[in-house]
């Protein structure tokens, strides 16, 4: 991870909402991301850190720049990507 000094464009901001915010070691990440890739690739990259990060499973919902996105949507450097769990309780 780069130093906090400059908000590098070769990275994405990753946010975790709801239950994920509690379960993961950090509520947000500045994740190195120099070229375009998919939401799924980003998720797998982060989950590959293991331990608690393995909670980033493919059934999660995702928003890119505050818009709901599918697993194959492109993520570019500078984007904000949010992950959160599905909910159906009533």
């Amino acid at each position: 991870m780069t130093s906090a000094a400059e908000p590098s464009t070769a990275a994405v901001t990753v946010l975790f909402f709801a239950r994920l915010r509690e379960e993961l070691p950090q509520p947000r990440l500045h994740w190195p991301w120099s070229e375009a890739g998919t939401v799924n690739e980003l998720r797998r990259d982060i989950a590959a850190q293991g331990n608690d990060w393995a909670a980033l499973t493919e059934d999660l919902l995702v928003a890119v720049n505050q818009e709901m996105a599918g697993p194959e949507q492109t993520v570019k450097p500078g984007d904000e990507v949010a992950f959160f769990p599905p909910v159906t309780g009533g």
Partner: protein
Amino acid sequence: MLSDNQLLRYSRHIFLPEIDIQGQQALADARVLVLGAGGLGSPALMYLAAAGVGHLVVSDPDVVELSNLQRQIVHRQDSLDQLKADSARRHLLALNPDIEVDALPRALDDDELQQQAAAATVVVVGTDNFSSRHAANRACLSTGTPLVSAAAIAWEAQISTFDPRLADSPCFACLYPDSNEQALNCAETGVVSPLVGMLGSYQALEVIKLITGAGTPLIGRLQLFDARHGEWQTLRLKRNPECPACASFVASDTSRD
């Protein structure tokens, strides 16, 4: 026509220029189908009844259990072991005898859901599983009925409104593809009581806005609420052109023109 008594009863709606007598009359003329008389359905039904929605239809196959009373506030101690639909009807009429309430103490099959959605002005879904939400979504798509969907678990909740009368509105399946039952439910996980109160009340607010035309409903927006930290998120939600649930209805819409 609203009676003098109704004009007084609903005066604090009528004072609002966005509702006025016309909007209150629209509420009186409306019929709202509420699927699930649980944590979300309870406050949704109570506010819709108090607000003067003329005809409520409540469907729930379950019986009131002691562990429901922590949050399902349309039911009372004396509702234990009664069917939720019947208990809800009794308490809603006590709140407002001015309205009609139909109790359907069963899970609706596709045919009945279709009939009820066709007769409804708006459908509210607050059930505890994805399959009933997808069934409601299909019925709303095929009958062109707006659907207000909320869900809550533990300390977190989601809400959105889908309006198949609008060509660019997403549907529930654009958000949740009809595939898995992975999500947690309150019966197994727990939920903080006023959270379902907030979201069920929000559903009633959405219904009133849809019926009266006031303001901007949550069509094309998904809101998340994190009750632990008191934070809301608003995310844009677009119609998925490849959504298997709504693509065919939109296509047939275009061919009608």
